[in-house]
């Protein structure tokens, strides 16, 4: 028997992590148990999606719940009994094979109208990984600079919100990338990567210089990322959202009222306007630079940053986080251990994924191109392939079809019976 609800639709696990009440008394795993039911009953009523972690503030803003799920019709229509049919042309079927299949719920969710929209997975990084080497190099450099600024600000408690905003932000407007890239990185006294001090500044110690540069860079970045611009973006988004919502409501009411054509036309116009506005906001919020832009920036960046050492663990973590956000490349921890400079990091990210098949590998590396007698196929060359190469397959196929013989395989025809006589097997 089925227990309803089979799917627990309630507890947001993150909300109850702090109060582990499900404790297994017998084993040590008690410390691991994290969900509770009693303390979160009130929350469970409000929130049915299960999240494993507290939603980020920005994620909640950007979150649009999936919608449009359509359950199958509940009322069932019974077929007319054969003795009640008055149509004289009706002939009862002799078996099920003759009947047409109607109804049924197979593939119900394959229909997009039933499945609804907004169910695709949204990760921390962009939906598609960036693979362009030039853009990746700019992204890595930007990540190094921003992570460095964030790392330097770690001991300042009041800088936490700004730091988080910096780490969590996307590409931002195009100008931001250009501004970030102007901040230079170089090798410090111990060979580690630092922010390059300005040449004209005459300060006493290297530490002071560094501190000054950090502060400068931080100010620049903060001005670029937070808080005014973000606030503007958020405001714009909210405006658009409310506009869309009000339009939708208006649309529904209008539909029910059967409005005149002019009204509908104006409605569509406003809708397109809203869409444009949304796109514009999106563009200004996140502008992934093009290859040409990246190449231009790379000339400015240079190569000085690639060699100095990166040792600090938290810095590496910030870098990985930024890179994941900007490019969609998740750097595994195991690789993070070995990454000890900007150059190594870049190489790791730019490196294309390993080919899954030998044939792909050979194709990628352009091997055996000069050998006239070597051909590489992605799969076994079958007799049919050979016939196709020869150009005889079409004829064979026609002939087989004409004789009513199976084109591929042996259908239900057994082996030659003479074989048994010859070999003596049963």
């Amino acid at each position, binding site marked *: 028997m089925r227990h309803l609800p089979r799917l627990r639709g309630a507890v947001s696990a993150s909300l109850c992590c702090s109060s582990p009440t499900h404790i297994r008394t017998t084993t040590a795993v008690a410390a691991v148990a994290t*969900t509770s039911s009693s303390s979160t009953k009130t929350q469970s009523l409000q929130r*049915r999606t299960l999240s494993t972690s507290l939603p980020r503030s920005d994620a909640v803003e950007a979150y649009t*719940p999936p919608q449009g799920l359509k359950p199958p019709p509940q009322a069932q229509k019974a077929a007319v009994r054969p003795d009640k049919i008055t149509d004289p042309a009706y002939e009862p079927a002799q078996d099920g094979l003759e009947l047409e299949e109607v109804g049924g719920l197979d593939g119900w969710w394959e229909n997009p109208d039933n499945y609804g929209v907004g169910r695709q997975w949204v990760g*921390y990084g962009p939906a598609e990984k960036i693979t362009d080497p030039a853009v990746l190099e700019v992204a890595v450099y930007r990540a190094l600079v921003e992570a460095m600024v964030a790392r330097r600000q770690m001991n300042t408690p009041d800088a936490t919100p700004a730091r988080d905003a910096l780490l969590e932000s996307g590409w931002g407007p195009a100008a931001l990338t250009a501004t970030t890239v102007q901040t230079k990185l170089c090798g410090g006294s111990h060979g580690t990567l630092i922010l390059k001090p300005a040449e004209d500044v005459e300060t006493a110690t290297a530490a002071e210089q560094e501190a000054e540069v950090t502060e400068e860079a931080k100010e620049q970045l903060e001005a670029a990322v937070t808080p005014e611009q973000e606030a503007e973006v958020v405001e714009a988004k909210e405006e658009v959202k409310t506009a869309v919502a009000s339009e939708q409501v208006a649309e529904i009411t209008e539909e029910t009222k059967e409005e005149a054509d002019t009204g509908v036309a104006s409605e569509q116009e406003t809708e397109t306007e809203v869409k444009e506005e949304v796109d514009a906001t999106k563009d200004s919020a996140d502008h992934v630079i093009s290859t040409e832009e990246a190449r231009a920036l790379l000339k400015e960046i240079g190569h000085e940053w690639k060699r100095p050492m990166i040792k600090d663990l938290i810095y590496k973590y910030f870098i*990985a986080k930024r890179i994941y956000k900007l490019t969609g490349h998740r750097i595994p921890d195991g690789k993070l251990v070995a990454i000890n400079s900007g150059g190594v990091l870049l190489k790791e990210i730019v490196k294309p994924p390993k080919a899954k098949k030998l044939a792909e590998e050979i194709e990628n590396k352009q091997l055996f191109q000069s050998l006239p007698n070597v051909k590489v196929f992605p799969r076994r060359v079958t007799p049919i392939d050979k016939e196709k190469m020869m150009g005889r397959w079409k004829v064979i196929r026609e002939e087989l079809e004409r004789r009513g013989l199976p084109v591929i395989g042996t259908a239900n025809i057994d082996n030659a019976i003479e074989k048994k006589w010859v070999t003596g097997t049963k």
Partner: protein
Amino acid sequence: MAGKGMRCLSEAMRGLSLGAQTCRTVPVRTAPLISRRSMATEAPVSKITRSVAEKWTPITTVPVTVHSFPDLAPRSLETYSAKHLYLPLRRDILHLAVVYEGDNTRQGTAQAKTRWEVAGSHRKVRPQKGSGRARVGNKQSPLQRGGGKSHGPRNRDFGTKLNRKVYDLAWRTALSYRYRRGELIVTEDGLDLPLPEDFLQQAQDGLLTRELEDAFIEKYVGEMLGAMQWGKAHGRTTFITGEERMNLFTAMGVAGENGRALELEDVDVKDLLETGRIVVESSVLKEMIKRHRSDLVTSIFLPGQKNTKETTMGTVVYPSSKVSYT
């Protein structure tokens, strides 16, 4: 007489000297420098050696990023000892552990009846002589149809033994193997699968049949894990939690082709080595290592003496610590 004796001695001594040994005096024929050439297959100088002046500082701790699920946003950073998560791959030890687990998992309940257990009379089937046929004892004989089975399977314990320290090392080696390959994803505690609100609501209202629910979950989970590159095409995914999470376990039961979900209690080394990646809660990882470090910590406790061999495990580096940049 004495002079002769001395001469003999000095001769004998000369015979023992280095110069007297012919094998040592044979000149080594060295080729002239011009004709010397490097061998065609000469290997390049290996980079595994390091300068004596350079200080050898092996890695002692490794970072572990804790992600949120399912968006995989990095949330915090922990460090583990290299002895926990950065061990070299030892296939032999993993093999020992997997075989040990396999042996101990065998039920060993197969049993066939011997001739002494087959029911029935033990009467002699026919006289010993005079029938012209083979001599037969009773009908329980293994030679008879319906008779007992000679050398058949018996209930037994197939379990083998493995030193605890070796097994624990295997466990951490398996984790390290995953870690090094980037196939160990650590999430925040409370790992569960978020299913869409509208679907859960409709399921609770009884608008969907079980088949429809299953079909929805299969599609939803398939698409989600596919987008994450964690699904069937990428070798499936094992989720490990501290206790049974209903949505996750139900969903993975339905969409089993894309992965599996296990409780900590049910995990063994073989599970860690199967599927494309392991997704594990932070505290579960800690618990796993805590249970499998008998070779690192001593089990003998003396009052007033600290366990010096104990190493760092799951120390939170970020966001809690305030360490200046080095």
